């Protein structure tokens, strides 16, 4: 990626800036009083100020403005932070190098202050920022800068916001990430579907396929460089792999079977799980992408689909209607008897293992409504995060704090949209997309 070529501590600037900087040290590990622990108890967002980053030359002003707004948007979008608007700020930051007058920011009750500077030269962009703990009157972590090309400016804004989020919450961040999804247009009975990719916040949509073939349920590889999806390009559902970097597209040869679908990568990206249907019966298979050899993991007369790996690659979770209704099961990849983990009222499907390993997100249907929910991997602690006419297809943010999913509205004019919700059930938000959208798959934090 040339958008963000380097990510460096402002070590070189340290000496020149003197007392402004604390001594060198780990950027993220510094502990201070400015700390937001994400629990279900967080209901009051942390107030922060992010005065427009200083434009270091004339042609940087527009960039400084829009870049600052993306940083703010990322943070506010989490529901964990509240921006103190610039109109309420009593001080101005006109120089990135001058000492911050913390009293001015205490006076407006800003717990955190983000200062930054932007330099545009030709198509080159440099962004610097510092995070301040206003009440402690000191920086939280060190200043950082990012260099890249101007067309990658949103990624740089996301990287700044990622740093702020990580330092304050102690969590891994997720703003500099992308989502692959199905773009939908046209009426319900003749819907056109294309694969598309966008930034996590809905910006920069690009289309990966045309709409000549029905496509379903794309899934990012763990490193974000490949996408598995199901397409009707040959007439019946088959699995394809798109290499995002070299942009080659190939069919995954799953062997005999009427259709192959529901693919998902292993955590190391070397294998895939998928469903294969033969004579009306659907079971789960594991394929080594290198050798192309497949191994059947389930063999029941019921429907087994929606497989997802545990992050350590040792187990899978999947849905099966072997009990009469769709329920969730876990089994070792090496084989063995599947253990049912869902026991509540209703039908459970589309399980996805959290990147943290501790929870499984799923779709639940009960009493004519659809829910996105999470439970622990032993089935305990079930929590429904949403409720609507039709919610499905949950996917985890790279840090396991947020779940994105698709929601369809009822009736002949019904359309699908993407939403995100915090794992606590708070902060339900629609993700803006240029068309209808379904089946999101959230990729990793970008390098």
């Amino acid at each position, binding site marked *: 990626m040339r958008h963000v070529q380097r990510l460096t501590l402002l070590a070189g600037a340290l000496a020149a800036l003197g007392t402004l900087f604390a001594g060198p040290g780990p950027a993220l590990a510094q502990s201070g009083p400015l700390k937001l622990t994400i629990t279900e108890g967080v209901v009051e967002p942390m107030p922060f100020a992010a005065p427009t980053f200083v434009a270091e030359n004339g042609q940087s002003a527009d960039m400084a403005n829009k870049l600052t707004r993306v940083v703010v948007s990322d943070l506010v979008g989490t529901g964990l932070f509240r921006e103190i608007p610039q109109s309420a700020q009593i001080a101005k930051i006109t120089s990135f190098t001058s000492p911050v007058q913390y009293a001015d920011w205490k006076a407006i009750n800003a717990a955190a202050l983000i200062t930054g500077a932007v330099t545009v030269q030709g198509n080159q962009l440099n962004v610097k920022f510092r995070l301040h703990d206003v009440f402690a009157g000191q920086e939280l972590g060190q200043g950082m800068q990012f260099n890249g090309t101007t067309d990658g400016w949103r990624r740089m804004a996301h990287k700044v916001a990622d740093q702020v989020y990580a330092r304050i919450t102690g969590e891994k961040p997720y703003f500099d990430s992308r989502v692959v999804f199905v773009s939908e247009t046209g009426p319900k009975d003749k819907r056109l579907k294309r694969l598309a990719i966008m930034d996590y916040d809905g910006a920069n949509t690009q289309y*990966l396929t045309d709409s000549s073939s029905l496509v379903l349920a794309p899934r990012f590889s763990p490193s974000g460089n490949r996408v598995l999806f199901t397409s009707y390009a040959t007439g019946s559902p088959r699995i394809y792999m798109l290499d995002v970097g070299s942009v080659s597209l190939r069919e995954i040869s799953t062997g005999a079977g009427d259709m192959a679908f529901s693919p998902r990568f292993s955590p190391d990206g070397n294998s895939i799980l998928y469903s294969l249907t033969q004579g009306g019966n659907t079971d789960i298979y594991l394929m080594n992408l290198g050798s192309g050899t497949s191994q059947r993991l389930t063999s029941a007369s019921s429907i087994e689909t929606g497989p997802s790996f545990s992050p350590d690659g040792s187990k899978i979770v999947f849905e099966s209607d072997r009990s009469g209704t*769709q329920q969730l099961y876990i089994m070792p990849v090496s084989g063995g008897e599947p253990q049912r983990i869902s026991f509540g009222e209703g039908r459970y499907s589309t399980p996805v293992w959290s990147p943290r390993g501790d929870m499984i997100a799923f779709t639940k249907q009960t009493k004519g409504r659809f829910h996105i929910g999470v439970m622990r991997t032993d089935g305990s602690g079930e929590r429904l995060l949403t409720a609507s006419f039709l919610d499905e297809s949950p996917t985890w943010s790279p840090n396991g704090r947020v779940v994105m999913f698709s929601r369809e509205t009822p009736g002949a004019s019904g359309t699908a949209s993407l939403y995100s919700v915090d794992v606590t059930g708070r902060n339900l938000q629609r993700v803006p997309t240029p068309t209808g959208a379904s089946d999101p798959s959230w990729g990793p934090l970008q390098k």
Partner: protein
Amino acid sequence: MTYLAKAALVFAVLGLAACTNGDRFGKLGGGYGANGANGAYGANGYGANGITSGGLNDPTSPAYFQQTVGDRVHFIVDQSSLNPEARQILDGQIRWLNANPDFNATIEGHADEQGTREYNLALGARRAAAVKDYLVAGGVRPNRLQTISYGKERPIALCSDESCYAQNRRAVTVLRAPGM
């Protein structure tokens, strides 16, 4: 990579896909009213309506098969079992297919929207297989019959209540022209 380069690459993908699949498109859509993008595979109603050869009064015509014999059966929620009404229709299909051995058929299984996408794909496959099995048991050679599932992707009735769902939970036997 730069955005410009990426845009070019996307084009490359599209070009590749078009090359790979161009042939199959023409074949599958041909003759039976290609339905345009995404529906080009004779998905249910549109494909069926595209058949114009022969007339309703000609018992060897596809139109007769569709409308007089009945080209589809319906299912109850989450089920793939064939009720007496469905069996009666399929008995008619067996007679027709056995009397018109030049025709082959693709059985398309569908689900209503009250289910998750991938499960409904599997459910549609189960329904199509139930119909195929019944036709084969009635003497239709299995190599004349293909199955495909569209899951909930191709509803024919668009409202979101049982009156529409009942129509969408279906398996449709779509004739293929002799030789196809």
